[in-house]
């Protein structure tokens, strides 16, 4: 049996979404390489939303999909709870094919397994905060008392206690999105779908809500698909990130992989401005101690500061500031490498010139 954490909760298998009447023809034309996206738009009157997207999200994982507007990320996330039907491919949730479900089975899945947060909040203006939050339970016919209790817990969790009887138009944007978050977690779903939840908020409130969200997700351990156009947000929040461009998932990987090894120029351009300080680990920039000793002769490492391979550049900078020596990287008391000042500076720049031992002058 698989362990809980390795099991894929969401699995997308070759999902295509082409808008237009000639969708099937358009897919064939693209896969065979006959036509470009522009030709398809002009000749077949079709728009390609998502192109052959495959990925899976493990239980408890936060999976960020990052792309600019029009890249198809919002279309892709709507396939997971089948708000949009795929043209080809299939989506599985806990092993069940979402696209094969009947109407009532699908509604049950949506109400009990999946919570969704929207960029434009999409709260119901004629319902107060409590009734908005309890909506998923209400449509499943939960008794009034239970709805109240569950809604109260969710409202408390997003720090909105005392606002239960207010209406959405009496709340600020940030508070409205807290209600959206509370509504999504109220029915205690397995999966959270976040469609650019914080994009419409101003930076300060966005940070606050990111904080609230990360705290909640650490407590509740939900499997999350998080859409954003902000790479920094994706890096801060995501366990893994998928970069999407023109409907294609260009690269899928951990934040560190994306930043240090971009798959193509498009991704590279994106990550160029990203600070590596809190992303890149010592393990990535260290060189074997032997190389160092080859270049500088054996040295007494007793006075050198020591860090772990998982320590981020930020920590290394703090250590480097206080000494003239290189930093020794040790795991479980065993020396595994060394980080010189120039390697550290290169790491901050995002370059990896550690492949060969370079003669270093200190």
């Amino acid at each position, binding site marked *: 049996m698989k362990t809980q954490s390795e099991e894929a909760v969401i699995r997308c298998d070759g999902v295509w979404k082409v808008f237009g009447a000639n969708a099937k023809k358009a897919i064939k034309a693209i896969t065979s390489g006959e036509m470009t996206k522009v030709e398809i738009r002009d000749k077949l009157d079709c728009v390609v939303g998502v192109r052959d997207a495959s990925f899976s999200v493990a239980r408890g994982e936060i999976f960020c999909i990052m792309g600019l507007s029009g890249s198809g990320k919002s279309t892709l996330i709507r396939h997971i*709870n089948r*708000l949009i039907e795929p043209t080809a491919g299939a989506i599985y949730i806990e092993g069940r094919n979402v696209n094969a479900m009947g109407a009532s089975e699908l*509604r*049950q*899945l*949506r*109400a*009990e397994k*999946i*919570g*969704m947060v*929207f960029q*434009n909040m*999409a*709260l*119901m*203006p*004629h319902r*107060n905060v409590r009734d908005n939050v309890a*909506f*998923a339970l*209400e*449509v*499943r016919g939960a008794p009034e008392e239970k709805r109240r209790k569950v809604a109260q817990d969710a409202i408390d969790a997003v720090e909105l206690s005392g606002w239960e009887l*207010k*209406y959405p*138009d*009496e709340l600020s944007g940030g508070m409205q999105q807290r209600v959206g978050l509370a*509504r999504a977690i109220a*029915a205690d779903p397995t999966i959270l*779908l976040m469609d650019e939840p914080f994009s419409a908020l101003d930076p300060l409130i966005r940070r606050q809500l990111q904080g609230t969200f990360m705290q909640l997700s650490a407590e509740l351990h939900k499997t999350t698909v998080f859409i954003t156009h902000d790479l920094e947000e994706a890096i801060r929040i995501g366990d893994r990130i998928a970069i999407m461009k023109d409907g294609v998932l260009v690269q899928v990987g951990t934040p560190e992989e994306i930043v240090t090894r971009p798959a193509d120029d498009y991704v590279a351009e994106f990550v160029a401005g990203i600070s590596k300080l809190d992303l890149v680990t010592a393990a990535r920039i260290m060189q074997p101690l032997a190389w160092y000793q080859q270049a500088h002769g054996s040295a007494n490492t007793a006075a050198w500061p020591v860090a772990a391979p998982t320590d981020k550049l930020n920590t290394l900078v703090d250590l480097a500031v206080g000494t003239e020596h290189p930093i020794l990287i040790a795991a479980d008391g065993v020396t595994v490498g060394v980080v010189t000042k120039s390697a550290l500076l290169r790491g901050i720049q995002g370059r990896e010139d550690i492949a060969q031992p370079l003669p270093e002058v200190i």
Partner: protein
Amino acid sequence: METSFNWLDPFGSINLNIGEWADGIKGWAMSNRPLIQPIKSFFETIIQSIEGALQTVPPLIMLILLVLIAWQAAGRRVALLVLVCLTVLGLLDPTAWSLAMTTLAIVISSVLICVLIGLPLGVLAGKSDGFEQAMRPGLDTMQTIPAFVYLVPVVMLIGIGNVSGVIVTIIFALPPLVRLTSLGIRNVNPHVVEAARAFGATPRQILFKVELPLATPTILAGLNQTIMLSLSMVVIASMISVRGLGNEVLRAMGRLDAGKAIVGGLGIVMLAIVLDRITQGLGRSGRDRGHRPWWQTGPVGLIANLFYKPA
């Protein structure tokens, strides 16, 4: 009779006998009156029970009732206006109040049936583009065709009297309710509907918990229009022997009696103002009312607060 076909004036040479054909339908209908009878008696019952109720209540009690309704629906200022209008109406002539109640009964019956027909049609039209397209020519015809055109066949089928009056009024007053219901449903924020779907709502729950509540102000604007149009039909309907204020105006025209005309005319205006302000008050959004439920405002709120203190 014509021996040659005139190409320059083809319409003069062709006679499709549409008039006779229509007459034929009329003849069929008149010989099959028993079929129409149940419909007629259904309408008759509605109108009579409403009028009966309105006429039995003493004018002063009715006046107070209407003022309280106005207060509840639209606030104190409108209640005051309604009080003034109704007093003026009553003082116009000793018979004016009773005539107004008869007219009100016709209007209420028509509007009631308009809502029963118009609301479902409007919801369907709001949900389906095809249905909306199909409805449009019908609604256009109902609104633009002169009332006199369908006055005759309706009378032929059903005879003169209140029932014909109500049917004629429905034909004229129904379209805005259908149109505005459809518009209201179409204008509901699609993101909110999507959210409702995403949380597992059934189509019926989406309609009743999201779309209809959010479309309510627009639907009530349509209801307001329907009421106003019904009221504007009372004079024309009086030609087929519908009693009430309209009949006063019609008789005054026949006799060049300015006094009667003013009583009838002003009476209709007063009634129109009262109905308009009350229904407009209903259409205010929750935000305008400060998000208090209806039972916490107006006279009901006063009484409710005596027994129940919100926590």
